[in-house]
Structure formats: C-alpha cells, structure tokens
C-alpha cells in the first residue's frame, strides 16, 4: 500500500488519491477478419457490407462501430428485405379482397351476387370483361375533366351513400309518375345526369323490393330514355356505362325472380306444372309490356336487358335466341344517331353473351351496319353538322365510337374461327374504315396479327385517314407486335415496312407516339444494335427545332421502357444514341428521368469504375439534387438520398484508392445538400483509409501517409457541412479513431477538438413527432469519446490535459435538463479516465501510436495535475449531489442515489483508500441509504455494494468502513 505520490506534510488538506497499480492487464485490442458482423444475424447479401469487412484487420472497435453505423444509416431496410418472415401489413389486405362496401351494396340490392350468378363460363382470361373496361371508359369520356366520375352503385365508384338533392329527387319522381311520353327537360349538366342516374338506381331497387314491378319497368324505361340524349357528347360513353349498369340490374332482377319461381321446391311438387306455366306467363307478360313501349330506343334497351329471359319461353313463336338477336340487331338500324346506334349494338352483344355466347354471326352484321353508317355519314352533311353542333374535332368524335367498337370486335374475335376473322377483314377491305381497322388490330389475337403483319401493315397504308389518325393505327399495331411473336425472319422487315411510313410523318407528336410503342417492339424482338439505330432515328426527328420540348412525356416513357428492358447500365451507356436522348429533358420530366436513370443504375448488379457511367451518374444525380430544395418533402429527399447512396455503392475503383477519393470529392461537390450522402461519403473515405492501411500491411510509406492525410482532411472538411448533429458527432468519433490508427496524430487531435466544440450544439431534447430527451445518447456518446481519449496522446504544446479540460468545460457549460444527473455520470467516467492515465501502462494501445503512458507517466507534473483534476472532479460531483439531494421529486432522488453508489464503486475501484476517501465513502453510503426506496433495484445495488466493500478483505481500510457502516445502521 505505498503511494507513488506521497502526501507531503505541508498539505493541509488530505487529497483523494488515485491508485496507480490497479490490476489492469494491459491489452491491445486485436482484430481478426470476419465474414459477418457478430451482431448481424442475417448473412449480409449486399456487396457493400462484405466490402467493409474485408478491410478490417486492425481495430475491431472502429470497424464494429463503423459497420453498425453503416448498416443503420445507409440501408436501414436491407435487413428487413432479406428476411422472409417479414410481414407486409398491406399484402394481407390485398389477399382478401373483401370490400365492406360491396357487402353493403350486395345487401342493399344484391347487385354483386346477381352479377356473379350471371357470369358465363364461355369466356377465358383473354377476354377483357366489361367490368374491367368500365373504369377506363368512365375515366376517359367525360365532359368535365376536373372531377372524376363517381357512381355509388358501381364497383368503380367510391362513396357508399350519395346524397341526392331533394328537388332533383322530386323532379325525377314526378317524371316517373307522369304518363306523358315526352318530357322535354332543359339541358342537364354532367353531375345532374349522374345524379339522376343515381336516383333511378336507388328508386329501382326500392320499387323492386316493394314488389312494384310496373314502376320498376318505368324506371328502366326512364333510364334508357336518358341514352337518347347526346347533348353532352363527350360524356356519352360514360353515360352509357352507368345507364346500362342500371338496366343490367333491372334485367338481372327480372331474370332471377322468374328463375327462382321455376325452381321446384318440395312444397310445390304437386302443382309444379302449374307454377311453371305461371312463371312462363309472367315472363311473356314482361315481353308484351316491353313490346308496347312506344319509343324505339327504350324498347330496344329494355328488351335487351332482359334478353336472357327468352330462355324461359323457348317454344313460343319468335323466341328462338338467334332469331331474337337478329331481329333486334336489325331493329337497331332504325336508330338514326350513329353513335347511339353503335352503343346499343355494343349492349346487344354484351347481353346476348348471356343468352347464347357462341352466336357471333350477328356481330358481323352489326359491323356491316356500322361501316354502312360510317360511309353514309361521310357522304352526307351529317358529319359536318354534328362536328359543328357539338364543337368537337373529328378525331375526338370518332374516338367516342371506340369503346363500343372495341367491345363488338372483342366479342367477335374471342374464340372465333379464322373464317370469321377473314370476314371482318374483308369488311375492312371494302370500307377502308380506319376506325374499324384500329379495333380489328387491337382485338384480334396478337399472334394472328403478328403472323399476318405484312398484310396488316399494308392495310394501315390503305386505310382512309379520315375516321381515325394513322399514327394511332400504327401504335395499336405496335402494341400487338410487342405482345405477339412475329416470325423471326420478318421482324426486321415489319419494322422497316412500318418505319418507311412513320419516319415521314410531319407532325412530331404523331411520330413520337408511334415511336413510343415501337421502341418496345425493338427492345423485345431485336438486338441492342437495332435499338441504337432506332434511337438515332428518334433523335434525328426531334432535335431540330427543339421539337423534343413538346413531347417530354413521350420521351420519358421511351426512356423508361429502355430501362425496363435493358438492366445492364453499362450496355446502355455504350449506346452512342442513348445518352444524347437523356440530355433532352427539362423541368419536371428531367427530374423524373434523372431519378429513373439513377434507379436503373442502382439496381444494376455490377460494380464498376467506368468513367462514362460515373459521369452519367454525376450528371443526373446533380440534376436530381438540384431539383430538390429545402421546401421539398422530407420523404422525397430521403428516397433520393437512398437512391444516390445505392449508386455510390455500385462504384468501386478497387485498389486505385486515389481515384476513389477523387470520386468522393466529386460526389461531395454534387450532393452538397444531402446529409445522408455526405455521411456515406465520409464512411467511404474512412473505408479507403482502412483499405490503404491493409494494403501497406500497417506500415505507411511517405506516399500513403500523405494520402491518408488527404483522406482525413476530406473528413475534416466534410463533417461540419452535415446538418444532422448526431451523424456529425458519430462521424467525428469514427474519423478521429481512424486518424489515430493511421498515425495522423495532429489531425486526430483537430477532429477530437472539433467534436468537443460541437457537443454543446447537441439539443437537449428532440421534437420530432414526440418530444424525446437526447440525454442518454449524449452520455453514451461522451463515454465512447472518453474511452478514445485514453489512448489519444496529449498535445505537445497545450499539454496532456488540453482536450480533457476542454471536454470538462463543455460538459459543465452544457445546458442539461433540470434534475439531470448526466453531468455527474460523465464526471464519474472521467474519474475512470484519470485512473487509466495514472497507470504505468494504459489498458490498450494503438499500434505505432505513443500514448500518454509512454509520454508522461514518469513526469511528476503530469501526476500532480492528474491528481488535481481527480480531486476537482470529485468535488464537483459532490456539489452536484448537494444541489440535487433537496429535490423533492422521487425520480431525481432515485438518480441521486444511483450516482452515490456509482461513485462509491468508482472510488473503491480507482482510488487509493486513505482516510479521506474512506470517510467520503461512508458519507456517501449513508446519504444513499437515507434516500433509497426500500424495495427497489437501488436498494439491491446498495446491498451488493456493501458486501463488495466487505469482500475487499485485504484492505484494512475497507474492513473499517464495513464495520463502521454495519455498526451505524
């Protein structure tokens, strides 16, 4: 028990003394190469984590910390993505498509259920059902593009209940009551019409449930009548969709009711025949009633809606399905308005599907009628007048026919014979109607189109350009070519054939619309070389006169298609015509394209150092970076940051660390506003330091030394520019450890100093979503910091205590929360530091770095100063305790108690027991005992501490304290 620092007699006050001979085993931390991080339970898949572990052979601590940082800051999602058990709460939602709304609808009117009953088995998955078609029609055909069409009783609509203004409701109800045939109403707006239809639907269900069949029929007629009016012509296809939905409901209700009555149950087995007759009679009655509807259009619509009911009265005259369908299709000719006529044709085809799906011949007749009217229309003044009346362009007007025609042709083409297709084609040959051709191409099986591609391409050339624009035809054609499998030998000839025409289009928008489709053809069926040629042609068209400015969205879609088809980014970069294409974007689409480019780059799985690629990355990264500012959404910034980081991860120069550093310098310049990216860059630089160290096997040459200094300088400059204080602090700590490890001592010192000055900028509380104290983080950060200080050599001029004192001061001045014991906790850590420094040998060393034990231990001045520091720290802790012990708050009392016991343990461990220390321990013990709650963790802690004192049997002083405590209590 000899003290190396003998207390001089002059000293008036005995001092607390450090015990310099603690049983520390001096240890240098040794690392070994590992494949995976011990904390990481899942084998890392990402290249970058492997990379980082490759270099770790020196300091495990730094590596660990770094890797932790790495994983948490760079890709917080990577783990979860790899994890199979990962549960996506949304995916479950998708699985069970149970829509509560549809339930209500079903219970209200049984709409859903009814529909399912009526599905025929005839169609297969190639057939696009009407239900799928509906939403797109509703979306496309509206006279008011600002508000989407919403209908409560259709699955495409959203809201469950629709409020119908009472005055409109009354008006409609009145109309229903009136027997008058003609009700001249003022021109209605689109929302009015939708509202009317809503009313009709709900009234229909109401009437049906109240067994008011006649009223139901009236409502159906009323609904069909709405389809006579074409005044809002752009809305007509949507109106058709909604109105026929009501008619379907009506038809299905009628059908199901009769069907139900036909089903024999046990009760009525006796008079089964009678009941069947009765049901048939009901059915006939419906048809008689409908046949006497005065107006043609409602009569046809309502009859078509209950077309399926004809199956109940087979055997009566004129009820054979084919005869009925033929008759109706002929009667449709009586509808003068060609648009209205074509939609009712579509409705007939749709409902006849339920009655006899195999019957198709009438569709040909319908198409013939369509072609006839189209021809007549072109020859008469009708078209001209119509366009003028509705103030609509020819293309728009013709476009209104699209959904109906598409449906007709789809029904015809589905599971049909080549003869039928041939018949339709001959119809085209006669008429040259391009609208018809467009839908022929879009609805015929793609493979049929592909194998007859030359013929179709000639058709397109022949088609009149009046009814439908040529470029649309080519687009439709292109889509089919992409979907199908054209014969290998013809792939190029088709393209050439088409392009001969397309390349001469004068309107650049027409041209690019076709190109947008055909790029996919080229990508799917041709080689990279052709793609490049194709791109060249595009560039040739759009560069002059800055044509590309007006077609940004098309270009964007072209680029996106290229990205989806060619995943290897280096292949793309090697195309001479690809990058010039990327240069043509501006504004919002430039941002989009930059983002897509980076996405493509980051998802490619090659690690590269290709300068062109890097240049591309930096160019578009810069564009993306510049498009965001402080007003951008945080989430967007986060996404872009991750994207950029992923791209940075793809770029690796291998052993050429200097180039890597240069790359990082450029990145910093480019992404100056992204904290996350800068964070990644600093870690990247740290990584190359480690790599260098590994390359020289721990012994730096002058050249590598200066390189390391450059690296650390990079860190030193970059770190302060990061806004996030926590990232910044961590980086300082890691950077300074690496600097120490690489013997860049003065720079390490500077980094540590910077870190100390930034401590005061740590906010005591964080207000993000919820208020959270940062105290715990700060304490643990400073503790790590102190443990690094153990080996950090003292400053040659400012002395060994320069940093510690600075830290001490910062901690003292930091605005801790009231009632916090953080300061005391950290001071206790500092006591440990003092203890370490007082040892002959430090507990650990860094290779080739002389620490304070080698520099100062024998220096008496050092020892004196250390003891002074030690004493002042204890005093400060005690005064801190003094301040806090009168706080009434329980929590604070608990904390104070903990500090007391912590301090006792620390003193026992690091201090040399003299009388002063002993009495301090005794007092602390009593103080803790006074405030400790009887049954708590603290009381156990206190008890254990006491028995620890007792166990230190070799020290007489300890025994004394122990006895004294025991006796006093």
């Amino acid at each position, binding site marked *: 028990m000899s003290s190396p620092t003998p207390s001089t007699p002059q000293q008036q006050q005995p001092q607390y003394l450090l015990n310099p001979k603690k049983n520390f085993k001096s240890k240098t931390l040794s690392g070994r190469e590992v494949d995976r991080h011990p904390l990481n339970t899942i084998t890392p898949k990402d290249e970058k984590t492997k990379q980082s572990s490759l270099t770790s052979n020196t300091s495990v601590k730094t590596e660990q910390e770094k890797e932790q940082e790495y994983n948490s800051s760079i890709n917080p999602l990577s783990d979860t993505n790899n994890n199979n058990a990962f549960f996506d709460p949304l995916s479950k939602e998708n699985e069970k498509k149970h829509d509560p709304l549809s339930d209500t609808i079903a219970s209200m009117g049984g709409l859903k259920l009814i529909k399912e009953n009526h599905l025929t088995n005839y169609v297969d998955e190639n057939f696009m059902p009407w239900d799928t078609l509906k939403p797109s029609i509703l979306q496309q055909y509206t006279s008011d593009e600002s508000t989407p069409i919403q209908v409560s009783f259709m699955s495409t609509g959203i809201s469950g209940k629709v409020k119908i203004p009472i005055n409109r409701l009354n008006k409609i109800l009145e109309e229903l009551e009136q027997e008058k045939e003609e009700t001249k109403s003022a021109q209605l707006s689109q929302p009015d019409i939708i509202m009317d239809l809503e009313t009709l639907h709900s009234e229909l269900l109401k009437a049906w449930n109240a067994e008011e069949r006649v009223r139901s029929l009236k409502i159906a007629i009323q609904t069909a009548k709405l389809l*006579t009016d074409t005044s809002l012509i752009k809305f007509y296809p949507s109106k058709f969709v909604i109105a026929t939905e009501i008619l379907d409901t009506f038809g299905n209700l009628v059908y199901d009711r009769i069907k139900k009555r036909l089903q024999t149950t046990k009760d009525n087995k006796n008079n089964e025949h009678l009941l069947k007759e009765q049901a048939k*009679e009901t059915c006939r009655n419906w*048809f008689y009633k409908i*046949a006497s509807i005065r*107006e043609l*259009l409602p009569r046809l619509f309502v009859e078509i809606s209950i077309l399926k009911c004809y199956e109940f009265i087979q055997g009566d*005259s004129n009820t054979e399905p084919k005869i009925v369908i033929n008759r109706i299709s002929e009667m449709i*000719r009586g*509808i003068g308005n060609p648009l209205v006529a074509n939609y009712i044709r579509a409705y007939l085809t749709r409902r006849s599907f339920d009655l006899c799906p195999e019957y198709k011949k009438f569709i040909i007749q319908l198409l013939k009628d369509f072609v006839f009217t189209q021809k007549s229309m072109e020859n008469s003044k009708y078209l001209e007048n119509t366009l003028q009346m509705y103030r609509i362009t020819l293309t728009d007007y013709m476009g209104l026919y699209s959904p109906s025609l598409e449906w007709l042709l789809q029904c015809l083409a589905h599971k049909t014979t080549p003869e039928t297709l041939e018949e339709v084609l001959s119809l085209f040959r006669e008429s040259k109607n391009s609208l018809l051709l467009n839908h022929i191409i879009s609805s015929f099986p793609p493979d049929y189109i592909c194998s007859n591609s030359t013929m179709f391409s000639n058709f397109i050339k022949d088609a009149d350009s009046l009814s439908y624009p040529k470029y649309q035809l080519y687009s439709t054609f292109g889509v089919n070519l992409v979907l199908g499998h054209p014969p290998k030998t013809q792939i190029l000839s088709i393209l050439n054939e088409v392009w001969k025409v397309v390349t001469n289009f004068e309107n650049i928008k027409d041209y690019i619309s076709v190109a947008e489709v055909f790029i996919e053809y080229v990508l799917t069926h041709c080689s990279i070389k052709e793609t490049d040629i194709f791109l060249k042609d595009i560039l040739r068209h759009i560069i002059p006169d800055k044509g590309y400015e007006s077609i940004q969205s098309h270009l964007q879609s072209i680029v996106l298609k290229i990205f989806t088809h060619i995943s290897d980014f280096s292949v793309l970069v090697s195309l001479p015509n690809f990058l010039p294409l990327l240069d043509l974007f501006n504004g919002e689409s430039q941002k989009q394209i930059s983002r897509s480019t980076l996405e493509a780059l980051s998802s490619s799985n090659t690690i590269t150092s290709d300068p062109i690629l890097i240049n591309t990355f930096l160019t578009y990264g810069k564009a993306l970076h510049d498009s965001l500012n402080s007003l951008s959404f945080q989430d967007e910034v986060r996404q872009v940051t991750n994207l950029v980081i992923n791209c940075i991860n793809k770029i690796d120069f291998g052993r050429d660390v200097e180039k890597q550093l240069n790359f990082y310098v450029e990145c910093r310049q480019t992404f100056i506003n992204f904290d996350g990216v800068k964070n990644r860059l600093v870690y990247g630089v740290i990584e190359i330091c480690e790599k260098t160290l590994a390359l020289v096997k721990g012994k730096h040459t002058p050249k590598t030394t200066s390189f390391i200094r450059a690296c650390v300088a990079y860190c030193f400059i970059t770190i302060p520019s990061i806004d996030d204080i926590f990232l910044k602090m961590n980086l300082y700590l890691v950077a300074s450890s690496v600097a120490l490890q690489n013997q860049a001592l003065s720079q390490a010192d500077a980094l540590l100093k910077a870190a100390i000055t930034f401590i005061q900028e740590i906010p005591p509380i964080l207000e993000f979503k919820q208020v959270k104290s940062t105290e715990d983080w700060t304490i643990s950060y400073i503790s790590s910091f102190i443990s690094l200080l153990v080996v950090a050599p003292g400053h040659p001029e400012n002395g060994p205590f320069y940093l510690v004192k600075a830290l001490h001061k910062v901690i003292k001045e930091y605005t801790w929360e009231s009632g916090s014991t953080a300061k005391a906790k950290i001071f206790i850590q500092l006591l440990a530091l003092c203890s370490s420094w007082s040892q002959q040998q430090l507990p650990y060393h860094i290779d080739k770095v002389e620490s304070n034990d080698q520099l100062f231990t024998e220096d008496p001045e050092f020892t004196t100063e250390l003891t002074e520091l030690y004493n002042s720290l204890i005093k400060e802790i005690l005064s801190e305790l003094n301040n806090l012990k009168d706080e009434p708050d329980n929590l604070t009392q608990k904390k104070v108690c903990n500090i007391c016991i912590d301090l006792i343990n620390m003193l026992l461990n690091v201090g040399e027991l003299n009388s002063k220390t002993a009495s301090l321990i005794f007092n602390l013990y009593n103080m803790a005992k006074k405030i400790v709650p009887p049954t708590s963790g603290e009381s156990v802690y206190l008890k254990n501490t006491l028995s620890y004192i007792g166990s230190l049997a070799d020290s007489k002083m300890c025994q004394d304290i122990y006895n004294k405590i025991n006796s006093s209590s």
Partner: protein
Amino acid sequence: MNVLDIKLKKIDKIYKPGNLVSGNVVINSKDDMSHSGVTLIVEGIVQLQLSSKSVGLFEAFYNSLKPITLMHYTINVTNGGGKFLAGVTELPFEFKLEPLPGQQLYDTYHGVFVNIQYSIRCEVKRGILSKDLSKNIEFIVEVPVSNVQKTPEEVHFKITPDSLVNFKKISKSEVPNFRISGKLSTAVCNINEAFQGDLVIEQADTVIKSIELQLVRVETCGCADGYARELTEIQNIQVADGDLWRNFKIPLYMIFPRLFTCVSTAGKTFKIEFEVNLVIMLEDGHLITENFPIKLIRN
C-alpha cells in the same frame, strides 16, 4: 270473414269452343257456414255501344245495338242448401264451352264500342240474415280460324309524292321529293306473331324525324240499313328514331297487344277489323301516312 273464389284449372284461362272448362269454387271460412245453395252462372255477351257523336244519327236502328247473349248456363254446384265446415272448402265444377243455339262464339275482345266478354259468376245464397256471397271472374275464349291461306302473300308498297292523296293545307308542289319502298310479310297476320315487314328510304330531301307504326282498330256496329264505323288507335310504336340513313333497310316489327286485339271478327250486327298505319314524320311537322288494312287470324 268468408272468402269466395273461383279457380280455373288453366292458369292462362284461355279456352276454345268445345273445350271443357273446369275448376273449383273455393270457400274459405273461419267458422262453420250454412248456405242455401251455390250457383254458377256462365255468360258470354257481346255489348255494343255508340260513341257520343253517332248517338243521334243512328237511333233508328237502336235495336241492333242490344247486347247479344252468346251463351248462358246456370250450374248448381251443390244440391240445395247445406253447411260448409270451417276452413277451405273446394267445390269442383265443369262445363262445356258451347254457344246458345243459333249463336256463334267469338274471341274475347275489349274494345271501346264492342265488347265480347265471357264470365263465370258464382253466388252463394245464405238465407235472410246473412249477406249473399258472390264472385265474378272472366275467362278468355279464343276461336281458331279455319280457312287460312297456306302461303302468306307479301304486300309491296311504294310511297312517292305522286302516290299521296288527301293533302291538307299544302299544295302538291310543296311536297318534298321522296321515295320510300317496302313490303309487309303478309297482310293476313297471325295474332300470336308479330306484324312484320321492312322499309327503305330510297330518297328523301328532308330530314325524317321519326317513323311509327300505328295499330288501329275499326269497330263497326249496325246492320245493312245503317252503321257506325269507329276508328281508334290501340298502339303506336316507333320503328325509326331520327333521320334514317338512305337505302338502309329497317325492319317493321310490331307485336299485337294481347287484350286489345282479337281475330278479325264479323257478326250480324257488328264487325271488328284492324288496320296498320305507317306514319313517317318529317322534321317540318308534316306526316306521310300509308294505310294497310290487315286481317288477324289465329291458327
């Protein structure tokens, strides 16, 4: 509450002359019910009526407008009085559909001026204290037509300004130029099938607003000395809406409404006939009408 009802075996209640009409008288009573006899009265009557405008004119042959009884039976369903137990009692009956001597059965027909109606009335006599019960139901008679031409003959027509007669308010020169042609499948129509044909607007200088088929009944009452002929519209249906495309053949198709039509009938003092008018409405408000007398038959 006692409920009396007559239920016929045939659900559609349609019978042909010579058929057996059978059914039940259904009595639904809560308590026991005594009665003094249940009688069925079966009647077939032609009722004639004059429209107000012809009343004065034809008073001379008022006699010829008396109702004609085609058949009249009285059937006793029970043998005198008795007692029905509480609950449902069914009393079967049956009779043969035959006219009175010297008379002939016609199709059931509900017109404005001519009505041919067949009914069964059931009466339950219940002594002095209780009210008698009675119930009346109608049944339908359809008379088959025997002498039907084997092959229906198509009727072709052509309408041009020259074929028009009966101009009102405009001179012939003002008539726009048009040529409409078409045909009817037959002018002798089966009542259960539709009136069918087709039509083509070959040429028309004006815009057509609508084309309609008008079914008209022609009821004639009286005898050789004098008669009243009344035309009323039964049904009017549109076959074309809006300006038809030229040279585009559209079908004419009309189903005969069940209650308001019967086979073309002629009795001694009355006649029921039908006509179809093809009405072409022009946008300027003018009408072009073509009249087709038709004969309705049943087989």
